């Protein structure tokens, strides 16, 4: 998968869009529970979560602070472990994988977009995007081609030699998106991707994510507080005190 270049993915994405969207879910959660221990007390965060997200979906997860949104996202992206239940992503039951296998799986299957961009400050935009590719076994030239292509997609090719501190918040988030898509992952997970941006930059980021979903058929799972951000999603689910509410489908704006 890592060997596909992003241009190819766009073509495949468009081809896939011609098919009916009713296919096997790319993300499937069955009876997932998660709790934390605090001061000797067990606090349930997620209770019996059942969720299916089809491939190519733009899925938004909303809810008040402390409702367990980020925890659910972390479980889907294998950044945290569930207490019980099954989580399948791209057909792989990630609850059965070892730490080492999970690391390998994350490297090839998940792209991450965080609220605070989480770029490595000592690396340039290009080097940040190249970072996940170092684990793929690609040659230096191939890595360069992929990273440049990803930066071109987010329209930051001109600023590839800039360090994060030399970029605006919106630009940093675009670099983070380029880093997220450079390995052509199965899913993109975004935790409050516009939470630290002004309106204009937030709109640009959401449009970029929307474009990736529509044109490249990328499955995006986004946690957000922001109703304007959620408007871009086709499916919105709300999480309240660890319980997942009913499906709300919409036409994205």
């Amino acid at each position, binding site marked *: 998968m890592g060997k596909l270049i992003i241009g190819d993915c766009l073509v495949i994405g468009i081809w896939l869009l011609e098919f009916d969207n009713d296919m096997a879910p790319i993300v499937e959660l069955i009876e997932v529970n998660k709790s934390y221990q605090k001061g000797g007390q067990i606090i349930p965060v997620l209770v019996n979560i059942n969720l299916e997200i089809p491939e190519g979906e733009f899925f938004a997860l909303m809810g008040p602070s402390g409702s367990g949104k980020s925890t659910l996202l972390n479980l889907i992206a294998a950044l945290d472990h569930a207490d019980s239940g099954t989580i399948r992503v791209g057909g792989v039951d990630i609850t059965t994988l070892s730490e080492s296998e999970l690391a390998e799986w994350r490297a090839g299957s998940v792209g991450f977009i*965080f*609220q605070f961009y989480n770029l*490595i400050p000592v690396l340039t935009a290009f*080097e940040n995007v190249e970072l996940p590719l170092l*684990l793929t076994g690609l040659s230096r030239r191939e890595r360069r081609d992929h990273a440049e292509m990803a930066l071109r997609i987010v329209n930051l090719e001109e600023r590839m030699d800039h360090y994060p501190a030399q970029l605006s918040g919106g630009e940093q988030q675009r670099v983070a998106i380029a880093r997220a898509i450079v390995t052509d992952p199965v899913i993109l997970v975004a935790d409050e991707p516009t939470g630290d941006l002004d309106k204009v930059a937030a709109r640009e980021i959401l449009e970029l994510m929307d474009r990736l979903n529509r044109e490249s058929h990328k499955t995006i799972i986004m946690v957000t507080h922001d109703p304007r951000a959620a408007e871009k999603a086709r499916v919105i689910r709300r999480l309240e005190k660890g319980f997942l509410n009913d499906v709300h489908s919409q036409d994205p704006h």
Partner: protein
Amino acid sequence: MFILKILIRNGFRHKLRTLLTILGITVAILAFGLLRTFINAWYSGVEASSASRLVTRNSISLIFTLPFSYKEKIRQIDGVRIVSWGNWFGGIYIDEKNFFANFAVDANSYLELYPEYILSREETRAFLRDRKAFVAGRKLAKRFGWKTGDTVTLRGTIFPGNWEFVMRGIYRGRDETIDETQFFFHWDYLNESLKKTAPSRADQVGWYMIGITRPDRATEVALAIDQTFKNSFAETLTETEKAFQLSFISMSETIIKAIELVSFVVIIIIIAVVANTMSMTYRERIGEYAIFKTLGYRGWHIAGMILGESMFITMIGCLSGMILTFPVAKIAAGILSNYFPIFKVEKEILYMDIAASLVVSILAAIVPTLRARNIRIADGLRRIG
């Protein structure tokens, strides 16, 4: 290459902190190198000693002399190739602060027994021909600006009076471990003068230096010599030249041990300094390590980054310390030349510097490395923002 780039950039992220840490390591390595050189200097006489030479002295103490008549008896012992002898003269040149070792020796046998003191043929001939002649080491001659033909007067402390000598040669050491700060003159000159001024002290020898036929016979020959003079009025103690030198060092063993201990304490202190730097680095970068893990990097990648950074910083400090050791040791050698004629930074000290730095870098990085390796991604990401 990429990892090296990250290590270098991370290493200088907090320039002041990194530079201060490097400075600390530099000073520690410099101190460690100098202290080890100091210890080596103490043992330099031992290093230069030959396995085929024995030293015979009075068994009570080196202060007590031996009769000159022992010479012939020693010469007849099986395994003895050559016998030389000498006395510590203890003369002072102008002022007491101008201390240097000066000996009365039997020139012919001494030069044969100690080929490591190199004189030209002309100088040797001139030295042997003139009863009042002396030869000095290159460093000693340079120190006082003596030239061949100069007259030098020493004030005797053990043998009172002003003693005049004429310089007939400047010897060089065969290699760098040979002391070039000594002063030798004819034992006959001393002995004949004593016959006139203090006859009871004449025909007495401070120690015999004995060349043996084979080094493996050293113990046997030493035993035979001591056996020969058993129950005489001046019993002997014969030992290898190395053991003889070590017996001098053993007098100051406590000081040497203390210096040795201090050299290791310096390393322990620097471990604490680097460990502190690495712990601060770890705490600041927990979030970043979590990001690396998010991207698929494993625990050992993170461990490698921390350990690599620790090694990078420590090795820069080590290199600077090693480079600085040479000029500082040279200055120290000049200052301490009266007491330590050989004060040289040996290759083995540089190896010890590198080994100590590696140990420092590893020990300092152990705790942060283990913590970072085991950090849970979700916990690490919570630290950001």
